[in-house]
């Protein structure tokens, strides 16, 4: 037994080395992760501002960032009101898309018959341009929030379905066999193996879906609406309120990035092993960790 405990100590030493190394690595990674994009954005804004001023571009043609910033401040109540409308459509549509997408993926993954019957329609729904469907929805359902929510769902359920189907099918067959030798039934296989192995795939789908949700809401509003940032843009452009159009675009961009980061954050909490596994798999680590 003495040889064994020595081996364990050696293993323990290898494992405890990791946190110290991680801290330094993480500090450098954070600087790179936040500092670099900030630098790029600042540089681009400065070039834009300088370019517009030096070339004396008309403000209704291309406003400088400073004018857009001023507009953001001056019209903040108006912008905020329309932001809430759009955000509500995005979140409601995204939530519905998750439900529809995961439910569809579940039946597709568990029945060959359903897969053959349903998958073609799922794919077909993506080949019809959403800009064609949106006016129809307007005719059928009228103005209000639902046509926009449906456009959001139509756009964003697809990546969720495709990724979740792949995820449910990706469970390691050896793991499933191991579980069967422990006496697991089909439901236990699903809950304890297939669902967790699917989670990283589901989150890949969600990251794409959240970005598409923002686009969907704006497209829906573009076609016909009485509120929302998309509506505000369609109304401001003909009046040459270009700085307001850019202000709305800026808010949309911030909304998209923020929602994307929130999904990524949720993934970190829901799939902590995925991150750890990936770090463990880093080249150079493989000899000590395997």
């Amino acid at each position, binding site marked *: 037994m003495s040889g064994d405990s020595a081996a364990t100590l050696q293993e323990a030493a290898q494992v405890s080395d990791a946190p110290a190394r991680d801290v330094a690595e993480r500090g450098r990674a954070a600087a790179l992760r936040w500092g670099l994009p900030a630098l790029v954005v600042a540089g681009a804004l400065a070039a834009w501002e300088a370019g517009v001023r030096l070339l004396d571009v008309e403000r209704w043609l291309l406003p400088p960032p400073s004018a857009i910033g001023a507009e953001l401040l001056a019209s903040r109540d108006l912008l905020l009101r329309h932001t809430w409308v759009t955000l509500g459509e995005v979140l409601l549509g995204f939530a519905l898309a998750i439900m529809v997408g995961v439910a569809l993926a579940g039946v597709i993954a568990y029945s060959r018959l359903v897969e053959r019957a349903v998958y073609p329609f799922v794919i077909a729904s993506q080949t019809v341009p959403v800009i064609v469907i949106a006016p129809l929805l307007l005719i059928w359902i009228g103005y209000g929030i639902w046509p926009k929510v449906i456009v959001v769902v139509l756009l964003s359920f697809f990546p969720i379905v495709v990724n979740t189907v792949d995820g449910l099918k990706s469970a390691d067959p050896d793991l499933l066999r191991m579980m*069967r030798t422990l006496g697991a039934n089909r439901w236990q296989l699903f809950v304890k193996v297939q669902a967790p192995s699917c989670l990283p795939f589901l989150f890949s789908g969600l990251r794409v879906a959240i970005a598409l949700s923002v686009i969907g809401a704006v497209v829906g509003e573009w076609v016909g609406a009485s509120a929302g940032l998309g509506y505000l843009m369609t109304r401001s452009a003909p009046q040459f309120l270009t700085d307001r159009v850019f202000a709305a675009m800026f808010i949309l961009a911030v909304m998209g990035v923020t929602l994307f980061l929130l999904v990524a954050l949720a993934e970190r909490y829901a799939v902590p092993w995925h991150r750890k596994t990936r770090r463990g*798999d880093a080249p150079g680590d493989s000899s000590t960790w395997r």
Partner: protein
Amino acid sequence: MTAESPRASTDAASPPKIELDGIGQDFALRGVAFPVLRDVNLRVHRGEFVSVIGPSGCGKSTLLNLIAGLEQPTRGRILMDGRQAAGRPGTVGYMHQKDLLLPWRSVLDNAVLGPEIRGTPRAEAGRRAMELIRPFGLEGFEKSYPAQLSGGMRQRVAFLRTVLADRDVILLDEPFGALDALTRAGMQEWLLGLWESWSKTVVMVTHDVEEAALLSDRVYVLTPRPGRVKAAFTVDLPRPRRYEMVTDGAFVEIKARALAALREDDSFAGLASGASRAEGER
């Protein structure tokens, strides 16, 4: 504890724990039946540690899958405790060459999978696991994820999971095959100590002659595919055994017998040279 005490109950009254009777197994490959095992007869008594050795691809793993109930034999029958086995998985413990830990579960949560699936209360399963964490050399790592552990530790977690599943029969499919030589030797000695203090029936598949001789009460030698039992012999070394015994005269003699049984066939040349290389390492 004396050498022969609780194990290998060979009295005629009790049926063998596991009995394979004329087992044949075919695989269909593009519609052609392709025999993997042919007429395999094998008996394992209660409390015995039996090894099955043979070259790669001789159907050793298929043999374990059949005993585990993961596959159904094409011919022959499998008896457990003298009764025709129902052929459903979940009745024996099975450990694979890969550790097959669930990456999203901590060490402790992986270990209690068996009791959890059977519906044992979590607290009780956790308590039993914690009692074994130390003898399994996993103390302080209960909350770690598999990706944070070394190969040897992961394999011990897999062992702990198999043990906590609490079956009388444990099947080991090259349990140390994925480990480096040094870790493997430590794990073999550790398993020796563990098993000698229990009363489990073990069937281990391996292509390592020394491993089979060190751990087993009896050894079966299979031919290349389609696998058939070519030889079977008893390892009459005293227990408790120690790793140092691998240099004893008696041990070397047994190893020579096993190697001779394997070498009879020319196609074992590769395996034999592999074994002598292993000898040279010491």
